[in-house]
């Protein structure tokens, strides 16, 4: 049936970005060739190749670490107020180039422009502004007279390419460290534009180095003997490898890994807003969110009502061109990730959970997966245990607050949780008992540079953001 009010395509213009055919590494303030075999980065919504990107070999990584080491002397000796000037400048340039960054992020990652424009890029700028403010106040942060660590080796994932870069680079630089950062191989482009922003801000050479490549490049960064600090965001599997590689060295390590967050809806929740929170919890960024609310725990007394509202709401989600300003659900980032989501979803079905997706046509080209809800999920099902990292929600039920806590905590992960209730005392009672680094009450997936973020158990250790985020980059 033809809808009465059909939104016409409203694509954001691509003209604002100028993608070069090939990109090198950013070492010591210069773009240089890499000595590894270059790789291609594609637009996951169309499978079109966007650019060819250099691969950093271990020699290239070594040069980057040497540049960072050399720059560390100059950078760490600068008064905090001077470092702050550079960070404020970077933050302002990010705001000035916000549209370009948002479009490029959507092209390379597949996320809807509404999210890259309204969430990712504003948060990136906010992180730089926030940590710029700390740069001259470190003596008042409660760590005595702290010293920077030295060279930070940072490896970031593809789900929030530029935001994860900001989470890593802003506090490191504010504290006086220099960095060698490796972006994910499927989403290197905004990091390379960020390198250009560093040049535009006239950041001293070597303070920020960007080395592109796959796992081997990351291993070279993490394993380099002259790296003092390793920061990684990504899968628990890779986190374990990194922890092993770092064990026995004096490198300081923070890991931000996977999650299987419970989004807990009580019978007295504000239903319409809880449904929005469920949608935002698992379908934001196609569910490519480590703190995604991938397990919905709904009180049995309101299960039907909540699920009916949820299904109705999901039928209004708009899936398609990530650059269209009205798109809610974009593309899955890579063929590999799509295969993983498919196989875990098929497993969910074969283990006996009921699968549901709204009527939905997927584009012919690119990597797409419809928003999917599994009901009748038990704690023992794979889809209630494994991190799917896609737009797949597992619905479980509970009867009492104590049972909700038990089920929420019954996972090897502990990154985040959500509580939906109109009762303030219950929020506090629950938050005390949930083993999760972040607990959201009547909201989900809200981020703020002033708020620390990090996990319990297999979700990693260390905190990013806020005052706590400074500790990871200071010798305390």
């Amino acid at each position, binding site marked *: *049936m033809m*809808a*009465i*009010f*059909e*939104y*016409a*395509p*409203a*694509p954001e213009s691509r003209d604002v970005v100028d993608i070069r055919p090939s990109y090198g590494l950013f070492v010591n303030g210069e773009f240089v060739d890499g000595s590894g075999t270059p790789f291609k980065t594609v637009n996951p919504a169309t499978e079109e190749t966007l650019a060819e990107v250099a691969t950093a070999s271990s020699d290239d990584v070594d040069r980057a670490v040497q540049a960072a080491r050399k720059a560390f002397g100059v950078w760490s000796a600068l008064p905090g107020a001077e470092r702050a000037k550079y960070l404020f400048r970077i933050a302002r340039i990010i705001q000035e180039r916000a549209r370009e960054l948002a479009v490029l992020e959507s092209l390379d990652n597949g996320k809807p422009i*509404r999210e890259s424009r*309204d969430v990712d890029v504003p948060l990136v700028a906010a992180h730089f502004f926030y940590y710029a403010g700390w740069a001259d106040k470190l003596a008042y942060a409660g760590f005595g007279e702290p010293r920077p660590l030295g060279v930070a080796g940072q490896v970031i994932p593809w789900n929030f390419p530029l935001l994860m870069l900001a989470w890593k680079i802003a506090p490191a630089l504010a504290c006086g460290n220099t960095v060698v950062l490796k972006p994910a191989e499927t989403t290197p482009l905004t990091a390379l534009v960020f390198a250009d922003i560093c040049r535009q801000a006239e950041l001293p050479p070597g303070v920020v180095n960007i080395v592109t490549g796959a796992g081997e490049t990351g291993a070279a960064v993490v394993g380099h003997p002259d790296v003092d600090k390793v920061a990684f965001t990504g899968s628990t599997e890779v986190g374990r490898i990194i922890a092993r590689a770092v064990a026995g060295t004096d490198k300081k390590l923070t890991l931000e890994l996977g999650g299987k967050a419970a989004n807990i809806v009580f019978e*007295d*929740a*504000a*239903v*319409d*807003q*809880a449904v*929005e*929170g469920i949608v935002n919890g698992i379908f934001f960024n196609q569910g490519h969110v480590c703190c995604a609310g991938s397990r919905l725990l709904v009180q049995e007394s309101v299960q039907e009502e909540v699920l009916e509202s949820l299904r*109705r709401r999901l*039928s*209004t*989600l*708009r*899936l*398609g*061109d990530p650059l*269209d*300003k*009205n798109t809610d659900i974009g593309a899955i980032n890579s063929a590999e990730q799509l295969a993983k989501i498919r196989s875990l979803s098929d497993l969910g079905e074969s283990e006996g959970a009921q699968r549901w997706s*709204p*009527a*939905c*046509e*997927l*584009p012919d080209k690119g990597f797409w997966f419809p928003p999917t809800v599994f009901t009748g999920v038990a704690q023992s099902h794979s889809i209630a245990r494994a991190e799917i990292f896609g737009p797949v929600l597992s619905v479980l039920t509970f009867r009492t607050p104590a049972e909700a806590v038990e089920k929420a905590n019954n996972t090897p992960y502990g990154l985040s949780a959500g509580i939906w209730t*109109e009762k303030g005392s219950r929020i506090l009672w629950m938050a005390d008992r949930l083993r999760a680094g972040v607990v959201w009450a*009547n*909201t989900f997936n809200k981020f703020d540079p002033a708020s620390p973020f990090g996990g319990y158990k297999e979700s990693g250790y260390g905190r990013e953001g806020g005052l706590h985020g400074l500790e990871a980059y200071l010798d305390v």
Partner: protein
Amino acid sequence: MPYLWYAGTPAIPRTWGTTALRGSGLEVEALVGDAVGVSTVTTSLTDVASSDTALRAFLHGLPGVDRVGADQRAAMLGTRSIKTTAKAQAIDLAISMVDLTTLEGADTAGKVRAMCAKAVRPGGDAPRVAAVCVYPDLVPVAVGALGGTGVKVASVATAFPSGRSSLDVKVGETTAAVAAGADEIDMVIDRGAFLSGRYMKVYDEIVAVKAACGAAHLKVILETGELATYDNVRRASWLAMLAGADFIKTSTGKVSPAATPPVTLIMLEAVRDFRDATGRQVGVKPAGGIRTAKDAIKNLVLVNETAGDDWLSPDWFRLGASSLLNDLLMQRQKLSTGRYAGPDYFTLD
């Protein structure tokens, strides 16, 4: 790339509801169905208004509204980008939903006649508006000017805008407006009674005014700016619908804030849920503060993504406004010619 999804139509057939109210007990008997297969649904809400206690328990048992979440949802829907063909479609739909309003002490027969002329022929080939909305004493003038044009005559009543008068006066005013030919009555609720928890008084007044309306449609103005909380907006919406409102309307336009997007969103959720519960469809009319085509289109997006297609018609959604129409006409011309004409190219009224 074309859109791959759009809001699915709920599997509920279009509904022509008739509400039979019997004393204080509430009997909702709705005729559900298309021309064929008419069936009678008696809802579980029969006893809700049997006593003050029952009504209070029901209204306070409705799910709460989280202000932060509702504001965010409305703000997100405000970012929808409506361009080209969609914009043209939305502008014409918005024009056809306008309740062109003048509610001033200085209103005269001449002013009302002029407004009626514009209501019928807004300019160019734009569609006519849904209704004109005037004070009761000017209803005969509007009826005279609009007879046979299809544009409805709406009259405010019940001691608009404050509602601070006796029930006799309110009913009398309604009766007079209907007798003078008003097709629609826009009544105000007793906010004082609502805020002091005397829900039954509010309910009884709506029932009485509805009875006085006869065949005329009743729009119940909640004056959400005075109700202050979103929980109150949802409760007042349900209260009005239970009492027989054909439409629920945000505001008189005399109090600020008037029709904010989150308030309209909550009322749209209320009519959607009410139809699910009773089978009876109730319309929504945001009024006050909607001045630009952009505001109007945001309202249509709210309807489209909250209540859905069934509410996207002048029968079920209205925009109460005075200056809005000219901005819609200006944007309409801009879309067809590519440039803006100056304000002198659009008639005052």
